[in-house]
Structures are given as structure tokens and as C-alpha cells.
């Protein structure tokens, strides 16, 4: 594979960039693989990459029903952070932050990782106390956290509403300076290109429609392009998890819900960090193109529609305008939605299953993009070694049975009620 470098860029300029290698091939499915990964989103692609790179397992196929990167990995608002209170989430995500920092070099692909910091705004003394507690927990786990007072927040985001008589005055905020954003498509493409180069077959336009299980062991999958044998199968289908679980006679602590996001018309640089509203669910950042990238609540009822409903968008943007009044002057450029695997405690599942050779990766809720590298890394380990790594040991499926929930947000068992 040609390396992406300034020299190769110049060299290829002489042939009008007509002779670059394809970034990945378009192979026919083989009869059999050591590992089949279902789902060519961020997590599936990263898993295949780390299977090849860390475990030398290259007889691997990624089976994607549409095109790689067409799911949530290409629909999210790209926030990357590890500002969690619970050890399981904090340590897992901070391990991921390290992988993010190295990712562009590691993949030889510019994923435009931009550690611009995230600020969670607080609107009361009580909320400041909660944030102080979370910040301290983060620091105990080696994650950077700074508690900002009102004046310090004002220095960073002067465009927010700091007037006295607002309904939700800004008291301060919790900042993780090392958090940030990345280019989501590049993450999918970067992992795909390297995985392909190491021998992984990326098979697109191929839908998994069933499984071949006998005597408690997985033997292969059935797809729209025929049957494929596999010693091991990993599920990375995010919002489609329930559909495939049904074919395995499993019911999971997951519901599929719709999350929307939108961008404004591009404007000059105004916001250089990620900011979340503390009195509702709204978050914002500015893309490199200048668009204000915004999102918030789920639509609120089970949905596989991949497109949203206006009342939620209106509600979310009302919060945004309360926080940053200048947003009301901007025109909306685009809105879209993705279907989300909402777990019952808000934390993910990366685990083995009761079926030998079948592995589960799901329950990513609002935060699966930032988890892409750590999820791929730990899922590859779980599949290759047939046992969980200590980093994903807490993300077990049976925690709902044993009561060891990881309830980060205090939302209880149904994260979609908020």
C-alpha cells in the first residue's frame, strides 16, 4: 500500500492523482473465515484492525449491509472525552484517549483529532458540587479535570448568555481540557484502509440475515450473498443489535431509539471548545468548516427510522438558544438522525455470550464514537483470547442479572427516559 505522505502527494501530482492505490478492495466473500465481524461501522472496522495488528488474526471478514461508515460512525457529532465518574467508564475511555492521540500516525490517515476541551456547564450550586465530585473521581483515575468558576467559563465562551436574569444562569463548569473532536468519516476510512492492507476482507452490500448455531456453538452466518462459515462471530451492529439478537433467540437489555443532530450554515470561528448545557440535553461545537454542530435528546420512542421528528429538534435548539442566544440568527443547514443501541444503564456491553464463539459489542448510547478505538481494541482481545480484558470486564452482559450496573448519569434503568 502506498503511504500517505507529502512525498507521495507530490509524486502523484505528476500523474494528476490518477494512480493512487485503492484505499480498500471490494472482494467476494470467501467460504470460510476465522473471524467474521458483522457491521462495518467504527467499532467493527476497529475490531478487525486490532485483530490483525495485535493478534495476528487476518482471516477476517467485515460484513456490512450498506456501505462502511454509513451508520452512526458517519452520523455522530464526533465528541471524544473520558469525563466519567465510574472506574469502568473512566479507565476504559482514558485508555481510548491514548489511542486517539496516536491514531493519525498509527493509521497513516489524518483523523483530524482536535483536543479542544469540553466544558459541561453548571447552573446551580448543587450542580457545581456534583461536578466537583466527578472531577475529583476523574483525577483519581489520572484523567484531567478542571473546575471552572463563572468568570473562567466566561473567558472561554464569552458568547454564552451571562446576563443575571436568565432562567438557567451559568455558575461555572467542569472542563476536561484533553477532550475534543475528530473527523468521523476519516476514522472509519483509516481503520478500513489499514485492515484491508493486513488482509481483512471488507464486504459491503451484504446483509446478515441469520446464524448457523448448533450444539451451543456458532458455525457461521447466513447473508444476502450466501452462507459464510466462521469459527468466531462478533456483533458490532449498534442500532440493529435487537434485530440480530432476535434471530439468535436472545432478548437484550437494549432498546433502539433515534438521535438527531444538525449543523448550521458555516460561520467564522467563534467557538473553540465543546460545550454542553447543564439544565437539559444540548451540546455544541464548531466544525473545521465553520458549521455549528449541535445535538441533544433522543426522539423519545423506539425508532428504526434513521430520520427524526421536528418537536425534539425544536426542544433541543430552544435549549441551545437559551445558552447561546446568537444561535437564533443562524440558518439551519442540515439535520439527520441515527438509530442508537440504548442500554438500560447507559453503559455498553463488550462480552462473550452463552453461544460458544459468538461475541457481543453493543449498548453504546450517546457515546460510542469516542469509544471506537478502545472498543475495537478490547473487543479484538475478547474475541482472540476468548476472554474479556480487564478494561471491558465491567461491561459484561450479566451485570443486569447480578446488579452490577454502571449507572453513570443516575438516570436509572431506562436511559431513554430523561
Amino acid at each position, binding site marked *: 500500500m502506498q503511504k500517505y505522505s507529502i512525498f507521495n502527494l507530490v509524486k502523484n501530482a505528476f500523474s494528476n492523482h490518477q494512480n493512487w492505490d485503492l484505499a480498500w478492495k471490494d472482494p467476494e466473500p470467501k467460504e470460510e473465515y476465522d473471524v467474521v465481524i458483522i457491521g462495518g461501522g467504527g467499532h467493527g472496522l476497529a475490531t478487525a484492525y486490532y485483530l490483525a495488528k495485535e493478534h495476528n488474526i487476518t482471516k477476517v471478514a467485515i460484513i456490512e449491509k450498506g456501505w462502511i461508515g454509513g451508520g452512526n460512525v458517519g452520523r455522530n457529532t464526533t465528541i471524544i472525552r473520558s469525563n466519567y465518574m465510574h472506574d469502568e467508564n473512566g479507565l476504559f475511555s482514558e485508555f481510548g484517549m491514548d489511542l486517539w492521540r496516536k491514531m493519525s500516525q498509527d493509521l497513516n490517515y489524518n483523523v483530524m483529532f482536535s483536543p479542544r476541551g469540553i466544558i459541561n456547564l453548571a447552573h446551580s450550586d448543587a450542580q457545581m458540587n456534583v461536578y466537583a465530585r466527578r472531577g475529583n473521581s476523574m483525577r483519581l483515575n489520572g484523567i484531567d479535570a478542571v473546575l471552572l468558576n463563572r468568570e473562567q467559563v466566561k473567558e472561554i465562551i464569552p458568547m454564552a448568555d451571562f446576563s443575571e436574569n436568565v432562567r438557567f444562569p451559568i455558575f461555572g463548569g467542569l472542563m476536561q481540557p484533553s477532550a475534543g473532536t475528530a473527523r468521523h468519516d476519516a476514522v472509519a476510512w483509516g481503520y478500513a484502509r489499514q485492515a484491508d492492507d493486513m488482509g481483512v476482507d471488507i464486504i459491503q452490500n451484504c446483509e446478515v440475515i441469520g446464524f448457523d448455531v448448533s450444539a451451543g456453538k456458532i458455525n457461521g452466518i447466513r447473508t444476502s450473498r450466501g452462507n459464510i462459515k466462521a469459527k468466531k462471530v462478533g456483533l458490532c451492529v449498534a442500532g440493529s443489535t*435487537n*434485530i440480530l439478537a*432476535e434471530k439468535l433467540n436472545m*432478548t*437484550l*437489555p*437494549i*432498546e*433502539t431509539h433515534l438521535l438527531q443532530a444538525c449543523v448550521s450554515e458555516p460561520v467564522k470561528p467563534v467557538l473553540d471548545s465543546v460545550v454542553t448545557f447543564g439544565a437539559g440535553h444540548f451540546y455544541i461545537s464548531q466544525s473545521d468548516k465553520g458549521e455549528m454542530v449541535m445535538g441533544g435528546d433522543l426522539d*423519545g*420512542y*423506539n*425508532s*428504526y*427510522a434513521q430520520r427524526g*421528528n*421536528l*418537536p425534539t429538534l425544536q426542544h433541543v435548539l430552544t435549549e441551545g438558544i437559551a445558552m447561546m442566544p446568537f444561535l437564533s440568527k443562524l440558518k439551519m443547514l442540515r439535520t439527520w438522525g441515527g438509530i442508537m443501541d440504548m442500554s*438500560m444503564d447507559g453503559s455498553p456491553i463488550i462480552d462473550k455470550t452463552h453461544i460458544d464463539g459468538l461475541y457481543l459489542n453493543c449498548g453504546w448510547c450517546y457515546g460510542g464514537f469516542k469509544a471506537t478505538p478502545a472498543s475495537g481494541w478490547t473487543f479484538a482481545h475478547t474475541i482472540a483470547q476468548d476472554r474479556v480484558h480487564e478494561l471491558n470486564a465491567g461491561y459484561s452482559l450479566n451485570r*443486569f*442479572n447480578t446488579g452490577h450496573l454502571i449507572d453513570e448519569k443516575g438516570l436509572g*434503568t*431506562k436511559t*431513554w*427516559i430523561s
Partner: protein
Amino acid sequence: MLYIKCPHCGMRPQIEFSYGGDASVKRPELNKEISDKEWDDFVYNRKSLRGKHLELWQHISGCRQWIKVERDTATHEIFKTFKADEEVV
């Protein structure tokens, strides 16, 4: 905007309602031995069907009654609505 026909009040916009999840989930009978698995299925595990889905909604800004709604989770088409204690046919 979804429009939901409340069996008590008639057709109303979705913003008057709040969502209550899968209506086919049954609480285990308390007067017999209940396994952990049964509690799991009641509290956490959901089919989350793609297609026809029977679900609970509450007409929170109206009559405040809980109702059952049969809705398609892929197209959002609403087929039928029922009172909470009405048999679904």
C-alpha cells in the same frame, strides 16, 4: 410530529404525550416463585421490534391516562390505540 388518537380525548399531537415503552412486558406474578431470569426480562430485557410495536404512552398534558398504542417503529405509522385495560386484538 406524530398524531396519536387518545381513546379518551381524540386526536392529539405527540407533544401532549410522554412515552412509557413496550406494553407487552408483563410483571411476574408475585404470589409464586420468581426466578432472576424472569425479573431480568421484566426490568431490563426488551425485544425492541422493528415494525409493529405495542407501547404505552401517557396523555400527560391531557387526560393523564395511560394508553396503549400500536405503532410501526420503522415508518411511525400508528395502526390502533387502546385504553390501558383494553384487550388488544
